[in-house]
């Protein structure tokens, strides 16, 4: 079944994540990339969770990935699909799979980025995914 889309609460940017949400407003999904150990991370932050270095650059992700896990919350109105998506760049992120048949989701399905507008007029969009 495909149902109406739930409204997304607007994320609140802070000094740590302003750059990420500005990029989101320009349609870009960024991941943290550590200039010390070379590892990428998500969600983005001011310290590398892998090595502890503070030398982080945000790099744009391709927006392609696959479903790591998913669940449809049937009791919500409207029901919606939460998921972890593993980006082709490596990190796995929490998101929603939108504009899909909620009865046909599966782990391993290829997905691509599609930002969704959020409730506040000036709120940044959030990175959601559709089946690729």
């Amino acid at each position, binding site marked *: 079944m495909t149902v109406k889309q739930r409204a997304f609460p607007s994320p609140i940017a*802070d000094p740590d994540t302003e750059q990420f949400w500005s990029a989101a407003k320009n349609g870009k999904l960024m991941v943290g990339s550590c200039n010390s150990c070379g590892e990428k*991370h998500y969600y983005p932050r001011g310290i590398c969770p892998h090595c502890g270095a503070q030398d982080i650059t945000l790099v744009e992700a391709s927006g392609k990935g696959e479903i790591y896990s998913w669940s449809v*919350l049937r009791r919500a109105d409207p029901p919606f699909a939460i998921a972890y998506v593993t980006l082709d760049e490596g990190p796995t992120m929490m998101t929603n799979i939108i504009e899909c048949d909620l009865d046909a989701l599966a782990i391993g399905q290829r997905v691509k980025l599609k930002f969704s507008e959020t409730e506040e007029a000036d709120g940044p969009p*959030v990175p959601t995914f559709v089946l690729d």
Partner: protein
Amino acid sequence: MSINGKAYIAGVYEHPTRKATDKSLAQLHAESALGALKDSGLTKDDVDGYFCAGDAPGLGPLSLVDYMGLKLKHLDATETGGSSYVLHVGHAAEAIAMGKCSVALITLAGRPRAEGMATGTAPRNYGSSAPDVAFEFPFGPTVVNMYAMCAQRHMYEYGTTSEQLAWIKVAASHHAQYNEHAMLKNVVTVDEVVNSPMIADPLHRLDCCVISDGGGAIIVTSPEVAKTLKRPLVKVIGAGEAPKHQMGGKVDLTYSGAVWSGPMAFDEAHVKPTDIKYASIYDSFTITVLMQLEDLGFCEKGKGGAFVSDGNLIAGTGKLPFNTDGGGLCNNHPANRGGLTKVIEAVRQLRGEAHPNVQVQNCDLALAHGTGGSLGTRHGSATVIMERE
């Protein structure tokens, strides 16, 4: 240095209420404390250490210490969700071993039912300053869909089935029928579980724990104090704790922090999983139990589904009797936090005070394990091993 043998559980109490419209939150904490003190044979004035978690109203432990009129030498308000109280037993044993206190009180209480809280199906916001909130809250993470994603992945990687998960609820219901205070006393079948309404794929209504008001308390004492009391001696011989999280995006939902807290506790106790006669395993959902049993080493990773099937967790017939009070799935999940009641039922078993129909024969070694927060994002894991002396 080890806490093995340095502390005893001298008193436990499970508040009988399951819907507390007539009591305040502080009152539930205090009534639980008094119940555990009475059980131990100690009084309020004997308490010199106090432990509580995020369910305590007010600033950390201070409001409740004031309310109950405690005079203390040691305080600990470590908050790791529903696992907090299992972790507190370990912390209390540490404090006692260090001579910081000799009678530690741990309390838990909550009124989610009386307050009409949408416990499992509404997103919880722990405050916008939590660094993960902006990246998760917009997507509607709830308690149930987060655990559901763990189940989904476990099924994908290991072939675990809904029927296997259902056996966990079936076993809990077999135990709950003998507990006069249990919220759900009806014995259920695998078919009834898998045919109950889907809440969040692949978890059905009967894969989820109850929502209950109530509380409980534990008294942990030094060996010197315990040996002056008239209760059976329940010795703390091992404890472990560990957090697990998203690891910077290297998310793996197939295992829990029990892979770390379990071995710490077993090593300290100098015992192994096959030695354990009874296990209290946190059962917010059926999948929680299955993953923790694997991670604690009761079976091989990925084989949890086969391990829990065919009544293997039912007292009297199964190899590993678990949650003989009915657990969170059927009896009680006070304050949406099931760690404290896990310790209580383990102590009942070690004392030989469980219901006769579920009492494990010669139960001299028991484990209690808690998971708090969310298996799907970040959680605390705590394991305690206890021995009847």
